[in-house]
């Protein structure tokens, strides 16, 4: 009955709490984008790919005279502009070797020497692919340095030339260009995510003023120059695996950064490629592909919808049980992001039997996986009642409660959200089920943690459980008291956070004041005149017609 549905909605709304309503229950993984922690995650993606020295592709061509000699920068610079193709190649190669040294390559010195324009110029030499290759290699290594060093490469107008090289008939040249572009696209992302907002703003300003083209970011600048199509064209059955790995890595970097996300058209172009790559048996490619999906799904509901429409979800979900932890981690992040979307989008994931993977994820030896798994579930329990029921039917509630009691702190925190969300979106019988599973003692235990938000989330949840219990509230109150929760709530009435002490006070006042009525009637003296009230509605009688 439609009317009933309306009522249900109303009920949910009327339970909503200050600071948390149904709309904001779905939580993105990092609601706070500022990070205090060391960023350790995804390091493999941020790592600049600096091509190692041992590369022996064309070393045989190198002039043996040059080899082993102590070369000076001046000599390199001078020879690199030589008309003699052999000398020029040797010089560029020497520069590349300098840059490939393991420790502290003299990048700044080389930039200062003015080598960049020379190297960039070499990229144009279609007549000499070896020279193009060496120059591209050298530039790749420069671009892999600090942000300023990457910027220097961009400013030297290398990007259009790298894009041109994507069409080179020589695969090693193409590959090197892909490498360089990946570093340029990825550099920006690194700064956006790892540096604090204020610093970021400064960098942003410097970069925008420095960055050629209309786009506010290097990524979009490179995209605007048309990187996507040629890049994706490399994906075909004949491409060597190492090259495909690099291509995939660049795709990941294209997908990173949601602020702003990549242009819609780019996402549309990339998605079909990801749908193909997700079948790949190479672990590196698979991991990068799934990370790319996880970035795309982290860019708001519209992007989530595009990912869903690409049809990739049914192939993504089974990866949750992949034997490689790296794949599992990325897949969990990607599906986790999708369920931050709407109920309908969440349902798409649920329809792929996603919950059947969770018993293993929740008992996974890696705590980080447990944590993200519970985070995922907290967004399901924030959904509609069928979705809540799905979590119950999959037998996951006892496992969430286990994490609530025994998990590491981060996991406990997510579990608190999962439980609290369920108390808001669940039906009476679903909340009762929670209680039967003995959720209250571990839930109450978190009332003494040193984290205001968790405390608030738990208090909210307890309050909802009490409201839901209706006439049975006293039974719930008793359980809360027995497990020491009451005492904790009483202490929270002294908490310095206003929202928390008010909530604690409310709960005590409504459910624990029992037959000991603590309140005195509030007696506000007032100096009205003696006598009686005057019964006289006529005095302020309205002349207008009544109309209800």
């Amino acid at each position, binding site marked *: 009955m439609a009317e009933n549905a309306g009522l249900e909605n109303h009920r949910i709304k009327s339970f909503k709490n200050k600071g948390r309503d149904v709309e904001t229950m779905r939580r993105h993984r990092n609601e706070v984008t500022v990070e*205090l922690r060391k960023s350790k995650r995804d390091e493999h993606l941020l790592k600049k790919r600096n091509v190692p020295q041992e590369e022996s592709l064309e070393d045989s061509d190198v002039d043996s005279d040059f080899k082993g000699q102590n070369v000076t920068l001046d000599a390199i610079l001078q020879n690199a502009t030589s008309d003699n193709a052999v000398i020029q190649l040797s010089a560029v190669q020497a520069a590349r070797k300098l840059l490939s040294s393991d420790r502290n390559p003299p990048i700044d010195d080389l930039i200062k020497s003015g080598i960049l324009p020379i190297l960039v110029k070499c990229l144009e030499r279609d007549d000499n692919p070896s020279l193009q290759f060496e120059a591209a290699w050298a530039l790749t290594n420069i671009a892999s340095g600090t942000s300023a060093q990457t910027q220097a490469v961009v400013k030297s107008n290398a990007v259009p030339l790298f894009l041109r090289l994507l069409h080179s008939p020589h695969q090693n040249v193409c590959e090197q260009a892909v490498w360089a572009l990946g570093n340029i696209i990825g550099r920006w992302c690194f700064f956006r995510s790892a540096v*604090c907002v204020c610093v970021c703003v400064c960098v942003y300003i410097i970069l925008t003023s420095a960055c050629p083209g209309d786009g506010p970011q290097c990524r979009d600048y490179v995209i605007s120059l048309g990187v996507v199509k040629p890049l994706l064209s490399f994906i075909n059955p004949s491409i060597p695996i190492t090259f495909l790995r690099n291509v995939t890595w660049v795709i990941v970097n294209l997908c990173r950064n949601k602020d702003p996300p990549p242009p819609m058209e780019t996402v549309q172009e990339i998605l079909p490629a990801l749908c193909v790559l997700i079948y790949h048996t190479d672990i590196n490619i698979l991991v990068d592909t799934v990370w790319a999906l996880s970035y795309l799904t982290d860019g708001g509901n519209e992007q989530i919808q595009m990912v869903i429409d690409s049809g990739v979800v049914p192939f993504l979900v089974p990866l949750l049980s992949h034997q490689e932890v790296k794949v599992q981690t990325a897949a969990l992040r990607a599906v986790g992001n999708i369920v931050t979307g709407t109920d309908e989008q969440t349902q798409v994931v649920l329809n792929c039997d996603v919950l059947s993977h969770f018993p293993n994820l929740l008992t996974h030896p890696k705590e980080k996986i447990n944590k993200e798994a519970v985070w995922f579930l907290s967004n399901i329990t924030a959904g509609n009642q069928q979705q809540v029921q799905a979590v119950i039917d999959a037998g996951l509630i006892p496992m969430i409660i286990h994490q609530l009691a025994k998990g590491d702190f981060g996991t406990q925190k997510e579990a608190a959200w999962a439980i609290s969300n369920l108390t808001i979106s669940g039906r009476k019988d679903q909340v009762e089920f929670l209680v039967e599973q003995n959720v209250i003692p571990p839930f109450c235990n978190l009332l003494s943690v040193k984290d205001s938000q968790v405390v608030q989330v738990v208090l909210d949840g307890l309050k909802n459980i009490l409201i839901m219990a209706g006439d049975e509230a006293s039974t719930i109150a008793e359980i809360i008291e027995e497990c*020491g929760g009451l005492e904790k709530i009483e202490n929270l009435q002294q908490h310095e956070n206003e929202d928390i002490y008010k909530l604690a006070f409310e709960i005590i006042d409504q459910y624990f004041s029992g037959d000991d009525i603590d309140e005195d009637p509030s007696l506000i003296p*007032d100096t009205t*005149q003696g006598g009686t*009230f005057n019964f006289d509605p006529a005095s302020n009688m309205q002349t207008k017609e009544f109309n209800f």
Partner: protein
Amino acid sequence: MELNDANLQSLTEFLRKTLDPDPTVRRPAEKFLESVEGNLNYPLLLLTMLEKSQDTVIRVCAAVTFKNYIKRNWRIVEDEPNKVSDQDRTAIKANIVNLMLSSPEQIQKQLSDAISIIGREDFPQKWPDLLTEMVTRFRSGDFHIINGVLRTAHSLFKRYRHEFKSNELWSEIKLVLDTFALPLTELFKATIELCQTHAADVNALKVLFSSLTLISKLFYSLNFQDLPEFFEDNMETWMTNFHGLLTLDNKLLQTNDEEEAGLLELLKSQICDNAALYAQKYDEEFQPYLPRFVTAIWNLLVSTGQEVKYDLLVSNAIQFLASVCERPHYKHLFEDQNTLTSICEKVIVPNMEFRSADEEAFEDNSEEYIRRDLEGSDIDTRRRAACDLVRGLCKFFEGPVTAIFSGYVSSMLGEYAKNPGENWKHKDAAIYLVTSLASKAQTQKHGITQANELVNLNEFFVNHILSDLKSPNVNEFPVLKADAIKYVMIFRSQLPKEQLLQAVPLLISHLQAESTVEHTYSAHALERLFTMRGPNNTTLITPAEMAPFTEQLLNNLFKALALPGSAENEYIMKAIMRSFSLLQESIVPYIPTLIGQLTHKLLLVSKNPSKPHFNHYLFESLCLSVRITCKANPTTVSSFEEALFPVITEILQNDVQEFLPYVFQVMSLLLEIHSNSIPSSYMALFPHLLQPVLWERTGNIPPLVRLLQAYLEKGGASIAGSAADKIPGLLGVFQKLIASKANDHQGFYLLNSIIEHMPPESIIQYRKQIFILLFQRLQSSKTTKFIKSFLVFINLYCVKYGAIALQEIFDSIQPKMFGMVLEKIIIPEVQKVSGPVEKKICAVGITKVLTECPSMMDTEYTKLWTPLLQALIGLFELPEDDSIPDDEHFVDIEDAPGYQTAFSQLAFAGKKEHDPIGDSVGNPKILLAQSLYKLSTACPGRVPSMLSTSLNAEALQFLQGYLQAATVQLV
């Protein structure tokens, strides 16, 4: 205001006057200062004074005034004028840090607070250089200045400990970390080095240690929200030094004071907190350090004395161990038998001992002792921390811990047995240990609800508790007696009934003990035992079982109220209330004596009501006396009135505000016992109850409405006869209540009683006005609660005066009004009416409108006939519609506006639910069927045709069911 000497001089004078004890001097000066504080330069004048005045008193006073000024005015509130000129703001921010750092400590603290208030508003955006300015002072080498900076930083940053995370907050913390974390770390290291170089200089050490404490507090604030990158990278430095400080001792820093914690203790306490923070939140990163901290903290505990000054440190340290030992992956740190034994022996047992400070509290500060021991406000005590550690250890090691402690318990009891007079404290500790070992879950209502099965509670009771209770001298070893009583009290749900019954007379005799704690515990234990439930929802202890002790129980309870210190003892009063309630009619013979004592007590406390709980239970006891006695013999009500009226009159006359709501309830209870007449003593009071001043206090409203309802029920006719001139005043109260969204339902209660009980002719002249008033409220601000009450009222009116009268009065106010109310209010909203009586009134009223109102059949109202019938069937059959429009959610609504309301309501003055229709209508569905039948016979053919054309099928089916049940057939 110029910044000149004259102004300085005059402000100085005013400041001096604000310190004057004489309010006639002080108040005008305070007023003056407030009146000029909006002027330009006012804050700068204050700053100048606190810096330059010759008079220290004036300097401090200026500092305090300045801080309060900042507190009141600095925040810029949207849509309100800026209260501090921008010029002054800039000048203040430019100078205050310097000024704070160069001021003596007393002034420094005030300015430091002021900086943090300003910082809360302006930092970091509008005060970007604050931190750098502060940090540069770290290099000054002057620890007076450094401590000033640290203190200010602490007050700026401590909010990070309790605020919710947000981008804004974290950006600020990030900024603080970038500027502050490294210099703080350097300062920390430097300070520790200085402590070593100055290890022999006590004055230097004091300053350095207060710096270290502040630094540790800052560490806590900065690490609270999440583990910052900087501190993760520098964990080695911080933790190694923290660990070093924990193990450090310096004779020079030991204080002789037994009570006040010294610098060493404060620092170590904070370090325990820091370690606990890391252990809880950053376990993964902290794991390598944790075992070292466990050992250090444990050694600390073993070597720390029993003095009060160590309490905070010890309880923090034990709590740290308690939180670590219940974590699965640290289990191994504790599981060794020797470790466990040593923790039990050296940490737990010593901290459970009854100390001389406890003994003092037991004797001289019993209220505090009881609050800590009985009500659980012992959070920071050593005993409590030790008890938590026992519970923590029991999670994994219940068996071994119980075994270890059993040994201790027997040896302590052995010590006691050797020489009770000397060693009674050993037995106290033994009982405490058993209690904390045995109790796993506890509630106020039932005491211990889950016990450690390895502890034989009953055996311990028989062997060690009963003997103390039985000892003939109730005043010997009062602490042990109190322990024994408490044992019975908290383990009441675990002990067999025969043991409890054995304890009852013993507890009664302990009511006579001189020790306040002891007789209070006895009263409390009895009260709790009397509330225990037995089979079939009766009390566990029956009145019959209590019969042999009744007299002594009542005697001793009342005698206990006369013991020194217990004149207003709430536990005793509650026990009196509970005894009355349990014993019921067996108290009747004692009431004549007891009522005198209770009223005497009431008279005394009404002079200066100070114990709300005591007073509440006193009134409850009075109500119980009345109810129980009058139930057996209603005529005795007059003797209660005789006893109570003088006190009640005095309370009313002296306007003892706390007691008025109680008095009105007691009067209601008394008046309701009378059968259909109202004594003149009540009538004399009637005009006073209509005084506006009483109705302005929200707590009075529910009991006063109830009292007026009792007047109307018992004396509607008398009021109409002898107090007709008071009717407008009575209706005035109704008008006052109806105007308020919070109290309108109370207004309807009153109105319903007026309609039901006043002779119709006495109110006929007011009827139209009443309705106009209701329509006005309906028009201007209707709420769901108002509509529900309104629907009940108009239907009650219809039942009482007839459907025609209802229709006529509506239509006389405005043509077609009746139709509009039917269409817009009754039909769509009647589904919301809740409560069986309320629903019945509406059903009967609507039935009358449908079947006894000619204009429903023959005018344009006819089209509403079927919808109204449908709505009535809906009221019978559909679930209640409890939806509330969105904007009403936050209106202050008293929960269920039934006939009950929440305020200081006396449980034992309860009112029976009143049904104005009563048995005259058994089943409203049958009434509808019969009435429809009657209508159909009056105009054959019409009713079936109306039904068949527009009533929906489901409703029709229900209706046919009613007709069948009534065995009638429409024609």
